[in-house]
């Protein structure tokens, strides 16, 4: 199965983003490597603004993701409520 993935810097904000990802995408695989966190999932992975805000306890703009992002694989779709990675089959 094709996997989408995202790698985040291992910092304090990413901690909450990862918690949100785990809550909204129950099957994700999370790997901790030196200075980074790699998260992969079959075909699709969504980061929802609402869930991140709930975990982090403040307003969070989806575009803030760029501050903790390292890299990603998958087709991207982003709007004010969510950031989604997907492959087409």
């Amino acid at each position, binding site marked *: 199965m094709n996997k989408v993935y995202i790698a985040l810097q291992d910092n304090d904000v990413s901690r909450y983003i990862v918690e949100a990802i785990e809550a909204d995408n129950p099957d994700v695989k999370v790997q901790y490597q030196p200075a980074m966190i790699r998260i992969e999932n079959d075909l699709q992975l969504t980061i929802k603004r609402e869930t991140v805000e709930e975990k982090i306890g403040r307003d969070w703009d989806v575009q803030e993701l760029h*501050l903790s992002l*390292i*890299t990603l694989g998958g087709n991207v779709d982003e709007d004010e409520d969510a950031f989604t990675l997907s*492959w087409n*089959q």
Partner: protein
Amino acid sequence: MAAKKLNMKDKYKMLTRDLDWEFSYQDRKEAFPYEEYEGIKITDWSKWEDPFRLTMDAYWKYQAEKEKKLYAIFDAFAQNNGHLNISDPRYVNALKVFLGGVTPVEYQAYQGFAHVGRQFGGVGARVACQMQSIDELRHVQTQIHAMSHYNKFFDGLHNWNGMQDKVWYMSVPTSFFHDARSSGPFEFLLAISFSFEYVLTNLLFVPFMSGAAYNGDMATVTFGFSSQSDEARHMTLGLEVIKFLLEQHEDNVPIVQKWVDKWFWRGTRVLGIVSMMMDYMLPNKVMSWREAWEIYFEQAGGALFKDLARYGIKPPKYVDIATAQMDHMSHQTWWNFYNFGEAAGFHTWIPSDKELDWLSEKYPQTFDKYYRPRWELAKKMEAEGKRFYSKGLPQLCNTCQVAMINTEVDDPTMLVYRSTEYKGEKYHFCSDGCHDIFVDEPEKFVQSWLPVHQILQGNCGGADLETVMREYYGMDVGVDNLDMKGSPDELRWKEWKSA
């Protein structure tokens, strides 16, 4: 009543597409003169959209924040003598390779995207390319700033810009970018976003940078991840353009396939140097080169090509050969530099026994059989006081400019020699891939500026290699080159650590 905040889609529309205008008295074709000559057919540019929907205001806001975070860390690193916290002084040699091999091509990426940011007919793509151009300039600057601290304490970092287009191994990435930048705008974009960004930077700026962190180099990992966060956007934009071309016209499919084949192969040749940085130059290991290739090319690239299959795009030609060679690449490359260590601008060394064991474990099919015996011999010779250096310089491939060290997939003891004749001259190649690229564009590749040929033709300011290295390359001969053992770098490190 306060104005309602625009949603991202509307904001994107207003701040990109709505900035465009119709050409009423000028010919659109003359305004975008490069758009058609590659044979690419675009019927409707308005179908192209940035999936991040990034607008200039948001771009400046988040990039400024990235820079502030990054420079706070550079300051802390320098103020606290961060170079003393690295795992092992050998590690700094990876930075010397990086600064000469990567930083200058970031500058070429900046130049290339400034060009296509003007030349694409679609405003969405133009805006995205302008942002990318600024990003690439940022990468150049942050890399220079990060390395400037190391330059105060280690040799070999003083003339990277003077070396990048002259030195016999630095010309590999330089010529890759010259090739891309002298192509049309769509080929340039595919070359950089697919080959350089999706394949190469994901290997260099992710597992290698994680390795930099693991070796105590806070400055490098931080600029690496900060750059790569831009690269994630770049490769996504590039892949969006590729999908867009495939959707616009079926005639575009064979053109895109040809570029995928060409640039995949060009990319794998540049990876030789990254493979040795991963396997040999990181004293604390995160993962092997082979493992990194599996995750970041075989899995990520495999997923991409399955996704593109619906347009009729096939995985790149010779992908099977490249994959088979990944069990050999780092070993052959590092061995080559160890041999020609007299003519390199950084130090080389024999891996420690622990490192040799790690390589045996990570490369069970190849290391003990083909490569460990060489290192055992080198160790024996070194112990007898006979550290050897190959004299002169290796022959280079006329396409990729890598030394001819590639071996046959079915016999790793046989070097690959391919050649062709063109207008009465014979040209040599490291692989079938490089041969095919030359044969397809001979008028371009007969112009290759091959550093070794140029020395022999007397174009590099000296008759002997040492004069060339000293005067033309700007190396401090006897200081920057040779083995790590006994180098001024090593002696200074020992002094610092014993103080």
